[in-house]
């Protein structure tokens, strides 16, 4: 899709410096396992932030904590001046009208048609009904490039890319202030990944929306984000280190001196495989012969 065409369609959005969402010393633990520790981030209105990091570093949990799907062990999440974890059910329901969440596998309701899935937030919040709602649903589908004939299909009849786009249409239907994407391009072919990237860019330009994108896809992160935050697994940090290894514009990623950030950005295993092989009690490789042969192979390659 040509960017110049998008520029003609949409009006530019002014970005504000006041944060719409902010975390203050946010920590999350499951039993003894620390997932997030003292995460403090401020995200201004209209900004698009990509949160990157290896699997298990707590990216998705951070995203879910931001919209109240997971309760933090300590710290605060402040959305538009309100600590969301102190709100009661009714206040939280009202606030959720201002969030849109695009789930990793779209999380469409299997029992409903596409029409009903996209219209769910409208029905839930009672705005609007009847023909106007139908019009909004069809417009929402058209915005993500889906024809009106998918409206009566079930999610199981659609491809992965189409389901993701339906998920995006559902998240956008109430024109939320905060849009969260959980690995929007994971599992898609390169063309469909780029379609999703384009749709994210288009959305940013169409609405005054703040976006947070959790992704492994560096191409996608560089393409759509104004700012990149890299998280690192807490269990791998040295004492006293921050879990946020990088926080800045995408251009600065290439000039960073942190080896761990470089390794992730360039997609290099480095010492990680040897670490896994030599770690005691590693569940995947308990057979001694297999362990030895892989270790030898790695040594030879090095």
């Amino acid at each position, binding site marked *: 899709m040509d960017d110049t065409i998008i520029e003609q369609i949409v009006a530019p959005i002014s970005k504000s410096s006041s944060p719409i969402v902010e975390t203050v010393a946010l920590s999350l633990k499951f039993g003894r396992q620390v997932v997030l520790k003292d995460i403090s981030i401020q995200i201004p209105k209209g900004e698009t932030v990509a949160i990157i990091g290896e699997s298990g570093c707590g990216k998705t949990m951070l995203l*879910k904590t931001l*919209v*109240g*799907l997971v309760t933090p062990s300590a710290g605060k999440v402040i959305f538009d001046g309100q600590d969301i974890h102190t709100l009661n*059910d009714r206040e*939280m*329901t*009202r606030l*959720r*009208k201002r*969030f849109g*969440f695009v*789930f*990793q*596998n779209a*999380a*469409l*309701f*299997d*029992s409903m048609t596409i029409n009903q899935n996209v219209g*769910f*937030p409208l*029905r*839930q*919040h009672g705005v609007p009904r009847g023909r106007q709602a139908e019009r909004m649903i069809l417009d929402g589908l058209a915005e993500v490039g889906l024809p009106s004939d998918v409206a009566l299909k079930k999610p199981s009849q659609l491809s992965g890319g189409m389901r993701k786009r339906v998920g995006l249409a*559902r998240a956008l239907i109430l024109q939320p202030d905060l849009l969260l994407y959980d690995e929007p391009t994971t599992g898609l072919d390169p063309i469909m990944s780029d379609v999703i990237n384009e749709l994210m860019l288009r959305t940013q330009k169409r609405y005054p929306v703040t976006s947070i994108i959790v992704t492994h896809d560096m191409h996608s992160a560089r393409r759509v984000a104004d700012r990149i935050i890299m998280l690192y697994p807490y269990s791998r940090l040295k004492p006293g280190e921050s879990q946020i290894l990088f926080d800045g514009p995408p251009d600065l990623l290439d000039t960073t001196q942190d080896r761990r950030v470089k390794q992730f950005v360039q997609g290099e295993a480095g010492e990680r495989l040897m670490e896994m092989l030599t770690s*005691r*009690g590693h569940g995947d490789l308990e057979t001694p012969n297999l362990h030895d042969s892989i270790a030898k192979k790695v040594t030879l390659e090095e």
Partner: protein
Amino acid sequence: MAADPFPHADSIPGRLINNLSRVVSAWGGVVVQGLTTLGDISLFTFQMFVWMFTTKPKRETLMPNFYAVGVLSLPVVALTGTFIGMVLAIQSYHQFKSIGMETRLGAVINMSLVRELGPVLAATMLAGRVGSAMAAVLGTMRVTEQIDALVSMGANPIHYLVVPRFLACMLLIPALTVMADFMGIVGGYFYSVIVLGIDHAQYLQKSRDFVGGFDLFSGVFKSVFFGATIAIVSCYRGFNCQPGADGVGRAATAAFVQSFVMILALDIVLNLFLDGVYFAIWPSGAKLF
């Protein structure tokens, strides 16, 4: 590898103490787990009641559940009810004939059906057909983040998913029980009167003499509790499903097994209660146990 909390002792008493400690620790773990689950289910049920009485469920969530529980379960309940009635006739006939009381077969079959087999059979079929499906559906929704999606769009999953299933099971199981009772009575009559040739008038007269309104009521009354139990256990299992296909399978199996055990345990308690009520109302009534 985690450090062994009970390091080996060289002496025989040391080893004995170690082994004993392991057994106590393992049983302690089971007890703690059991109490935690009980607390969790109680909280889950409490939240469900709060939502049920404070927010009206939506028609779009009620109707599909009422249809699945009531309409779609009806044929299988009717069929199994008929078979049970016939089996009772086959099993009892020779014993009753040997003492010359085969005309009382109707009383025995119909009493067993309306007081015990009808409600338990309807509940068992519901637990197998609907309960495990509920656990599998909710478990899949949990695993595929559909429950998170509901929450993120401002819907409460207990209000949206659990309350309609609970109402469907609790309100429609009496109808299923009455159907199981009726078809069982028809099956028993058919085998006794048509196949075995017992006198039609005497069969019906003896049934009428022994089976009363309270017997029918007690069966239907018990079924309401069975339906509520099936819905709560199945929804709880679905909501607490472990990830993956294995997790969903386990949730569905656990929903059926635990519902069934709970139905039989509840049956004992409710029978004792109902007999207490019966004798309080009719003190001269026949002693039942």
